[in-house]
């Protein structure tokens, strides 16, 4: 598997502030990589360093070994949707795309194709100053797609999109990966990304916390399984549980949680003891819980987390709340 994007020991200092602090990760072709971290964790700075918009204080950020500025006709290889990019308000959407297409040597026919692709054909001749945030976001995406690039970089792309727009974006991103393109998409919300991404790169305070697959992250979340049981026969249930080696705790007058239990085990167990149940819930830590604990409870001194090894200690679901 070749890496479409390689970030190696990347640093960025703004005066005394270390916005990006020795960050390394890779993005594979044909996969969607979520670039996740809280606001201010250096995501945008990293993406802008990749694109040559922000200078690098140390390390490298390359596409197939080449810096963005060294790529001939770069927007035909790397498409980017960035925050704080804007358009001339007096320029029509189609004209904006034409200026980019002409400048980059892209056939003008692509302009209408991409407008169609992002669903802006009807407003192609409207001035961008009249566009809503969502329409601007779509126009940015159209700009990124003009050169039909094999690498896409999207910085918080769902900002300003309505729920339909977000759903459309997800489908679009998945499609890009399915045709072999590499997609790096940043977000401060894992929940927003978990239906979309294959891999995750989690950063906090400019440092890598973890690079892994979503499946692996889900396993981490899944390890904290338990059963929450509500029953009118609490005393009988606890007596039965105390007879076997299993941990439990009472969380309400008629409710308790059995650590590490599964429905496959507990169902037959309850039937065997003929205990009446009102509620039976399989509890597992959510991905968001894992994400929050990773980014907030991050300890730079923990070598297991730094390496992103699956054998690292399972984080506590819920984290510091």
């Amino acid at each position, binding site marked *: 598997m070749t890496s479409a994007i390689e970030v190696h020991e990347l640093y960025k200092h703004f005066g005394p502030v270390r916005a990006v602090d020795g960050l390394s990760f890779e993005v594979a072709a044909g996969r969607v990589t979520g670039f996740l971290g809280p606001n201010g964790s250096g995501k*945008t*700075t990293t993406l*802008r360093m990749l*694109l*040559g*918009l*922000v*200078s690098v204080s140390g390390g490298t950020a390359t596409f197939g070994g080449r810096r*963005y*500025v060294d*790529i001939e006709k*770069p*927007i035909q290889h790397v498409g*980017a949707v*960035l925050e*704080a*990019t*804007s*358009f*001339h*308000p*007096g*320029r*029509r959407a189609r*004209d*904006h795309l*034409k*200026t*980019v297409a*002409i*400048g*980059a*040597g892209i056939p003008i026919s692509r302009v209408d194709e991409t407008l169609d692709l992002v669903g802006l054909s009807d407003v192609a001749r409207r001035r961008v100053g009249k566009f809503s945030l969502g329409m601007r976001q779509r126009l940015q995406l159209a*700009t990124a797609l003009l050169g039909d690039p094999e690498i896409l970089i999207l910085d918080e792309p769902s900002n300003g999109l309505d729920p339909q727009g977000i759903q459309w974006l997800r489908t679009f991103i998945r499609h890009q990966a399915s045709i072999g393109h590499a997609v790096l998409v940043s977000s401060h919300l894992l929940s927003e990304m978990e239906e979309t991404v294959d891999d995750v790169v989690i950063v906090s305070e400019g440092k890598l916390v973890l690079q892994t697959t979503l499946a692996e992250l889900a396993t981490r979340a899944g390890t904290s399984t338990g059963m929450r049981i509500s029953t009118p026969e609490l005393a009988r249930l606890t007596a039965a549980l105390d007879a076997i080696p299993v941990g439990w705790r009472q969380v309400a007058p008629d409710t308790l949680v059995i650590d590490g239990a599964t429905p496959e085990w507990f169902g037959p167990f309850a039937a065997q003891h003929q205990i009446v149940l009102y509620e039976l819930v399989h509890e597992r830590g959510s991905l968001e819980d894992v994400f929050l604990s990773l980014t907030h409870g991050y300890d730079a001194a923990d070598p297991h987390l730094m390496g992103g090894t699956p054998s690292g200690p399972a984080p506590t679901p819920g984290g510091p709340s």
Partner: protein
Amino acid sequence: MIAIVRSEWLKMRTTAVPLVMTLIALVLNALLILVIFLSHDGGGGPGGGSAFVSPGYTVPHTTQQLRNLVGSGFQGYILALLLGVLCITTEFRHKTVTTSFLVTPRRPVFVVGKLLIAAVLGVGLAVIMLLASLLGGGLTLVARGGSFSAMVHQLPAVAPGMILVFALFALLGVGIGSVLTNQVAAIVVSLGWFIILEGILVSLVHGAERWVPTGAATAAANLTRGRGADFGLFNWWQGTLLMLLYGLVFATIGSIILTKRDIT
């Protein structure tokens, strides 16, 4: 590079700048023509104003007067300067520079693209103002009993120098704009220099007139007038080189600053 210039041309064309600039240029030109026709014949020639049919008003007839009429839009060089300033600072004002740098990541190349389009726009503005002078000035001249053919006869003596000067000022505008990317700051500094500061400098420092941009540009305007240095100015090619130097020095400084600048 041709692609970049074509792109820049489209960028310009799809904003209100060309229209607004053309309108301002035409109004300015009309005023300047008016001034010529309303002015008393001061230093027109040894004959003085006594020969005129309408006492107190000039009907241009001497070579210099006719040249002044053809080149009545000459003051529009300040608009050419502003065109240059606008074509680069607009990118920063509307944050379109992010997209431009993604398309053209080498920032000196971006500045060169702006220099080239600004030169084209400067030439275009000069041509528009020359045509306006021929039309507006010519009609007024004929209406006053002057000779249109005599006026047209002076076109080759005026047009090349004026076109050259407008292009040079547009280049200088890009240079200033590349250093001062804040649009308001760049406009204020440009106008402040050419309207106020330069005059003060020239009056204070002996011999400064040939070195300041306006002096250099005035010299450059003598391209086809067959005159040598006048008013202590350089000759046309020295003036051209000096103006070019000002523009390119600023553009180089601007390119260096831009290359180091983080676009966040």
